[in-house]
Structure formats: structure tokens, C-alpha cells
């Protein structure tokens, strides 16, 4: 963004708008005050003129002449001229004020009026006057110089203009500063985003400060970028694994078909090859469906179909389903019943599938003669499901990795399975607001899927002794 675009930034426009609003309101305020003050001082002057006029009324001729003469001496600058004119407009007594002829001919009496007198050095002198015609035909004029009032007015207007100019300059400066600041921030953010768009997912937006709306936004966007980076890496991992997990059976399939084409002679040869191909295709489809299911669960749309689910019932059903399998392998599969019911909102089929995966895994990796225990539990901190075995367990460094799609531990690489089981469990747990925790059961593996952080106390041996295999 260039500086020429300054006027397009929001902060600059906002600052300008406030400047204009402030200017308009202070102009209105000033105008009102100015008008009120002016009015007030005019009224004061008019009152004064009236009262001075009135003070002459009870005086006789000699007294008023004496007062006029005394005033003339006291006010040589004609700031407050008192003049007595005869009927023709000739000055009889008082200040040395000569009225122009045209003014004399239209002289209003009985009220205040404005007039001006030509000054000796050029220009005019403004006055406010009050004339009264006496019974004798003479005219008494009392006036007051308006220069002071005019100068005061000019001073006030000038200072308002200066103040306005300074305010406008400061305001514009401030707006420009805010605008440039926002241009800079947005430039920085734009560049950072551009880097991300160009493929550098480790890039983050620059953070300045911890509070403020901008910082908050940056924080959220950075969180989002982090999640995107995680997802991108996962997608890449998934693609690599898909390539491996699908390519291997596809290669086998193709090789088998080509071999049949070359060598098969009898119908039986062909039938055997077909059966092989069908089996291979089915296993490919199973992997493919498992992948789709993880995605389907992860997109969260299934929350719409949530219902009340009794986790105890689900775990009980899974244990019942797997009992014959455990029996066949010589493993003791136990259901631990707890008195407190564990009911939550969820998707029963998905929760069942998740527990099936946990129990299936436990049975797969526990040697004959081993023990697998499953239970649903409810604690004040939350509810969940726990599956514990006393098999070899998962090494510490692989515990996080096993939750990823297609990850297979070194030990499991040659067993059946798509490597998607725990990823699906993790997705189901996330969908239900549960966390999946893998810990060491010493020996063995303990998997807890629960809401909140309701990790229950480990299963005690005595409790196991009391809970016979069903």
C-alpha cells in the first residue's frame, strides 16, 4: 500500500470525520457565544444611554450646561460624547462632536441608534447614540464609542480562527499519523499473508502488544494459521501414507491379474485369480471407507444427530461383542460396572465404533493369558470410557503419533488393520468434546476417552478380583 492511498484508510477517514464534526460543533458553539455576548453588551450600553438621558431631565438649564461642560473636559477623546444641540443642529454645549448634516436631518429620537462620524485621519468612528428632543426644541445627544466593542469582537474572531487553524493542523497530522500507522500494520499483515499464500505455512502475522482490537485479531488469525499448518502437515502425511497403503495392495492386484493373463490355463486358475482380485479390492475398499469415515466424523456435521447415550450400555455391548474373541485368544476381557450412570449426548453408533476400536486394539496387542478391562465412568469432573490392558503398551515417543491417520507402530506394522483405528477414535472423541489420553498402565496401555479432565483413579487389582469375567 502506498502513501497515496492514505486517504482510503479507515483510521484516516475516521479521524477526518471526527475533526469535521468537532469543527462544526465548536463553530456553532462559538457563534452562539459571540452573538450572546454582543447582544448583552449592546443592551448594557443602551441601558446606560437611557439612564444618562434620564439623569438630565430634572436638571435646570444651568445645572445641565455645567454638567455637560464638566463632561467635555473629562472626556476629550470623545469616547462618551454628551452634546446639546439647538433646533437647527448647532452645538450649544458639551463634547466637541460635529454631526454630519444628513445625519441631523434624519436624527431619530427616543431610542438608541447607530451612527458613525468621519475621523480626521480617514475612516470612521462608530457610535451608539440616544437623542432626546427637549421641550425647548433643543436636542440632547448622549453617545458611546463602539470601537472597544468592535475591537473586542475582532480579537475574539481572530483568536477563534487561529485556534481553528491549529486544531485543524493537529487533527490532520493526527489523522495522517493514525492512517500511516494503519497502512504500515496492514502492509505488514498483507505481506505476512502473502507469504502464507505463497506456501510458507510457518509464517505468522506480526504481533504488536497483547491487548487492543488489532492484537486480538492477529492472535486469532495466528491461531488459525497454526491450525492450517497442522492440517496441511497432516494432509501431507496422509497422502504419503495413502500412497503407501493403497499402492501396495494395488500393485499386488495388478501383478496378480497380469500373472493370470500370462499363465492361467484352466477355468479354475481364472476363478482362483478372480477370487484373489476380489479379496484384494475389498480390502482396498475397506481402507478407503475407513479414511472417508474419519473425514466424515471430523467435519462435525454428525452433531446434529446427537441423542442421549448411556456409555455403560455402549461399553457393555462392546464387551459382549468381543467376549468370544477374547476367549478364543485366551485373554480375560472384563467389564467393570460402576454404580454411577454415565449418560451423555452423542452418537451411539460412533461411540460404539470408538470403543470397539479401543477394545479391538487392546485384544490385538495383548498376548494370550493377558487381561483387558473396560469401563464407563462418571466423576464430578466429567464422564468417559477407559480401556486398560496389560500387554506391552505403547512406547512414550509413539503415543502422540498413534493418534494420527495411518500411523503404525513398529510393533504393529505386520498385523492386520488400516492404521486408522485410533485416528477414528480421536476424531469421535473430538466430535463429542472428549479428549483421548494414552498412559502407561505399568505394564500395558491405558486409554481414557473423557470429557473435562476426569481421569479416574487406576483400576485396582482388588476391584478386578471382585469383577469376574462374565
Amino acid at each position: 500500500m502506498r502513501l497515496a492511498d492514505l486517504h482510503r484508510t479507515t483510521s484516516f477517514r475516521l479521524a477526518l470525520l471526527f475533526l469535521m464534526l468537532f469543527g462544526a460543533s465548536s463553530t456553532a458553539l462559538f457563534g452562539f457565544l459571540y452573538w450572546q455576548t454582543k447582544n448583552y453588551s449592546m443592551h448594557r450600553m443602551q441601558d446606560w444611554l437611557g439612564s444618562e438621558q434620564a439623569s438630565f431631565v430634572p436638571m435646570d438649564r444651568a445645572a445641565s450646561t455645567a454638567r455637560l461642560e464638566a463632561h467635555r473636559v473629562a472626556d476629550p477623546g470623545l469616547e462618551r460624547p454628551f452634546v446639546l444641540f439647538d433646533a437647527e443642529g448647532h452645538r450649544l454645549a458639551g463634547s466637541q462632536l460635529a454631526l454630519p448634516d444628513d445625519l441631523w436631518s434624519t436624527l431619530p429620537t427616543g431610542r438608541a441608534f447607530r451612527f458613525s462620524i468621519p475621523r480626521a485621519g480617514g475612516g470612521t468612528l462608530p457610535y451608539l447614540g440616544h437623542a432626546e428632543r427637549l421641550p425647548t426644541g433643543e436636542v440632547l445627544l448622549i453617545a458611546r464609542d463602539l470601537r472597544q466593542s468592535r475591537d473586542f469582537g475582532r480579537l475574539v474572531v481572530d483568536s477563534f480562527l487561529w485556534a481553528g487553524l491549529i486544531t485543524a493542523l493537529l487533527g490532520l497530522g493526527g489523522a495522517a499519523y493514525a492512517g500511516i500507522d494503519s497502512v504500515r500494520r496492514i502492509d505488514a499483515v498483507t505481506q505476512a499473508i502473502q507469504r502464507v499464500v505463497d506456501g510458507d505455512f510457518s509464517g505468522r502475522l506480526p504481533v504488536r502488544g497483547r491487548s487492543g482490537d488489532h492484537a486480538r485479531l492477529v492472535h486469532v488469525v495466528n491461531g488459525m494459521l497454526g491450525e492450517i499448518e497442522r492440517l496441511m502437515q497432516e494432509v501431507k502425511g496422509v497422502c504419503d501414507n495413502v500412497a503407501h497403503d493403497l499402492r501396495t495392495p494395488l500393485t499386488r492386484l495388478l501383478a496378480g491379474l497380469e500373472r493370470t493373463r500370462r499363465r492361467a490355463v484352466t477355468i479354475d486358475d481364472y476363478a482362483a485369480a478372480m477370487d484373489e482380485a476380489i479379496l484384494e479390492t475389498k480390502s482396498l475398499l475397506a481402507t478407503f471407507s475407513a479414511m472417508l469415515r474419519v473425514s466424515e466424523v471430523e467435519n462435525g456435521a454428525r452433531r446434529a444427530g446427537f441423542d442421549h447415550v448411556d456409555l455403560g450400555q455402549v461399553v457393555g455391548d462392546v464387551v459382549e461383542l468381543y467376549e468370544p474373541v477374547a476367549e478364543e485368544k485366551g485373554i480375560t476381557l472384563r467389564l467393570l460396572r460402576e454404580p454411577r450412570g454415565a449418560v451423555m449426548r452423542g452418537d451411539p453408533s460412533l461411540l460404539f465404533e470408538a470403543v470397539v476400536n479401543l477394545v479391538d486394539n487392546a485384544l490385538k496387542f495383548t498376548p494370550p493369558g493377558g487381561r483387558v478391562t473396560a469401563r464407563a465412568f462418571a466423576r464430578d469432573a466429567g464422564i468417559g470410557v477407559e480401556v486398560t490392558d496389560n500387554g506391552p503398551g505403547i512406547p512414550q515417543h509413539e503415543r502422540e503419533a498413534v493418534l494420527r491417520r495411518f500411523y503404525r507402530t513398529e510393533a504393529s506394522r505386520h498385523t492386520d488393520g488400516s492404521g486408522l483405528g485410533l485416528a477414528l477414535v480421536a476424531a469421535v472423541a473430538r466430535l463429542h468434546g472428549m479428549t483421548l489420553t494414552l498412559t502407561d498402565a505399568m505394564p500395558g496401555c491405558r486409554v481414557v476417552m473423557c470429557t473435562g479432565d476426569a481421569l479416574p483413579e487406576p483400576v485396582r487389582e482388588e476391584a478386578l478380583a471382585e469383577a469376574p469375567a462374565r
Partner: protein
Amino acid sequence: MTRVLVVEDDPQTADEIRCALGDHGFEVDSAANGREGLIKAVAEHYDALVIDRMLPGGLDGLGMLATLRSAGVESPVLILSALSAVEERVRGLRAGGDDYLTKPFDFIELTARLDVLLRRQSAPRRETVLRVGKLEMDLVTHTVRDGGRVIDLLPREYRLLEFLMRHPGQIVTRTMLFEEVWNYHYIEPTNVIDVHIGKLRKKIDAEGEEPMIQTIRGSGYMLRAPG
């Protein structure tokens, strides 16, 4: 002969379904879109319909199904769909479908499910005793006998056997058994059901006799009277 109408827009898929159903002994008619399917289904009588969920043109599978139902066509309908989400399934069944199958599927799964739908249509569940060969299940007292021998079954084994006995001589797939007996909807990935069937076999088969529950390779089971 059982007549089935297949409404599917992809010609190759439609052909495959036609072949599979034909091999199974059905007389198959097909339609390539919702309008054509609707006209055929209303004009003629079919024992069952297989309708693709997504059809080109204005009328999709569910719209066609809803129209059919409101027109009074009561034949069982199996919906085929590429959408596997549970709510899609629920929507399909709510629109008047009797079963829902996600693509891609095994044809044996399709024919097995159609058989069950047709059987349900023709023989309502009114009987109190099921009989297959010497095997006899009393649905009131929940007892199972093999000739004179009383067979002691766990509740889940009882329900497995009941489902098999309701469909004697028909292929029943693992998924169908799982949905019916365990009541959870997902494709059971491992062969746990096999182990349950194995246990059930040991209980019902008398010594030295041909096993009654036969395994259909790669797909399911069939209960049949020996001999």
C-alpha cells in the same frame, strides 16, 4: 417371478445391477431417471424397487420415492447412495425407503437385503414358532429345541438365531446381522461376528450331523435344514 425395478442413471452400474439381480433369479426392469422410474413404477407392479439416491433431472431418488409413496405404491424400496453419513440414511428411510445401502457395495449384500425385504413383505411376523428342519424356536417362551434336545442360548445368541431362522435358505450378510442384532449402524470391520456364529454353531449342531449354518465365502451365512 419376482419383478424388480432398478432406477440408476449410470448405464454401466445399471447393467451390473441388472446382471446381478438377474443371476439371482429376479426379473429386472430399469429406468435411467426419476421421471421414467416414477412412470414405470406407477404403471406396472413391481415386487421391489432399487433407487439411486442421486438422479439427474429435476426429480432425485428421494423426491421420486416420496411421490411414489403418496401415490400409494407400497412395494419395498432399497435406496443406493454414495452418501454414507447417518443423517443421510435417516433421511432416506424417512422418505419411505425400507433399506439403505452405501456405494460401493457387494452385490451379494444387495440381493441378500432385497430377499429380506421381499420376505418381510410376503410373510408378516405373526408366527409364534419358527421351524427350520428339526430346529424349533418358540417366540413366546424363548426356548429353542433341536428335536427333543433343549438348546440353552445367551440372549444375543438367541437373537442371532432368530434372525437366521426368520430367513432360512437366504444369505444373510455380517452387516445385516450386526445391524439387526446389535442395533448399531456401521460397517463392522473385523470378523467378530464369525466368532459369535462359531459359538452358536457349536450349540445348535448335533453331533455327527451336517452343520445347519453355512458360511457363504466372503459375505455371510445361510441357515438351512440339512439334507
